[in-house]
């Protein structure tokens, strides 16, 4: 269980992130998790004096997400990574690689998004 998680809407993301900056929080990173139902959780992790706070938004895969890199420049790499590996529609990243920061042109699109179900035959074909 993660403590200090606040569920917020996409529309209010930039306002909350501005508040974090105003209150002296350091941006650690962001994490995206494919929920497997067409939605993705994006967690933004912050730290102040080694105490963490997290903001969570849940978005549909094609939904537009505003970039926070204009507020915290440190978000520039992780937002490009989420855009590339999860196919998230993140807009206005300060340095935007256009989905080609890590992968070459001929790689699978959004490889971290849930696309493959692995069937373990030893366990009666139950998806793992």
């Amino acid at each position, binding site marked *: *269980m*993660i403590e200090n998680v606040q569920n917020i809407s996409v529309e209010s993301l930039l306002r909350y992130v501005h508040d974090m900056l105003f209150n*002296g929080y*350091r*941006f*650690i*990173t962001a*994490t*995206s*998790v*494919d929920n497997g139902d067409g939605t993705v959780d994006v*967690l933004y*992790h912050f730290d102040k*004096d*080694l105490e*963490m706070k*997290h903001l969570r938004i849940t978005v549909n895969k094609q939904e537009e997400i505003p970039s926070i890199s204009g507020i*915290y*420049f*440190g978000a*520039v*790499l*992780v937002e490009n990574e989420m855009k590339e590996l999860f196919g998230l529609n993140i807009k206005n990243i300060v*340095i935007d690689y256009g989905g*080609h*920061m*890590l*992968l*070459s042109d001929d790689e699978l699109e959004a*490889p*971290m998004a849930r696309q493959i179900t*692995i069937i373990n035959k030893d366990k009666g074909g139950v998806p*793992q």
Partner: protein
Amino acid sequence: MSNKTVIPFGPQHPVLPEPLQLKLVMQDERIVEAIPAIGYVHRGLEKLTETKEFTQNVFVIERICGICSFKHALAYCQGMESLMGIEVPDRARFLRVIWGELHRMHSHLLWLGLLADAFGFESLFMQVWRDREKVMDIMEETAGSRVIISTNQIGGTRRDIAPEMLAKIDSVVNEVKEDVERVEKVFCNDYTVKHRMVGIGVLSKENAKLWGAVGPMARGSGIAEDVRTLGYAAYNELDLEPVVETDGDCYARMKVRLREVYQSVDLIRQAIAKIPDGPIHVPEKGNPNGEVISRVEQPRGEALYYMRANGSKTLDRLRVRTPTFANIPALLKMLPGHQLADVPILILTIDPCISCTER
């Protein structure tokens, strides 16, 4: 006003042990802007962990980076232990400190050698790496391998260290400390070394926080933060103060790492003096369920692990944020205004690990 030119720095460069490219926008000899190009060693390890059983993942995680492999495994195991409610035996907690600090020592000594090599001081490079070999030998004697030692497992450690070996480690790390004290004079006082580093790549305390710098890079700018002070493993039972310098330049970052070698020696000796007898491992039962965050202080700074489990043997998600990933944005902001000749030392003083960054 002259035209701007773009000079590609890397991906292959004598100062970079791993491939990283910076596109440097130059005006004469001055940098105006730096844009990174990464992706040369991306292996998709986070995705791979979703296909392996959670106990097997320890071996995948260790291969994110050779230099801090133990710390990666530690962060993962601590997260899993927290999810599964496992209480690690006391002896294993102290063993984790000993191996963890040995890793910090060998990482910092490796870096100091690379730094000496970067400014052309070959004999200094050889001396520091000779000292590092003593630490690597301890790894081999205690774990059977020098780099990826695989001594962590969920619930404790895979190996124990015998009392005679602990006494030997105590003596060897003290010997390494004396060796480093000798070379420290060169690193800190040599005219050429200071000329290359003092006042170069200054990162203020405010900017270090704003751009998310971590580890020796943040502590070199006066931020007294070290995740070890949260007290994971057995750090809560040891005397530990973050090593801090305030000048924020390349020289300050070098001094932080030098002093952290001494700090690691001190922590290892404290741990050896306090380590209790007892078991080193408790078996895990069932499968993990829920989500958790685990943080450790690697040699290069804070690493964050996020894990989400669903009650089965495989994880839904494992996310790793490594320290170099956090330090690259600050590097990009530091480079403008510097001369092209300063770039190698400036990049080196963030101690970049590209394998960690790309995973």
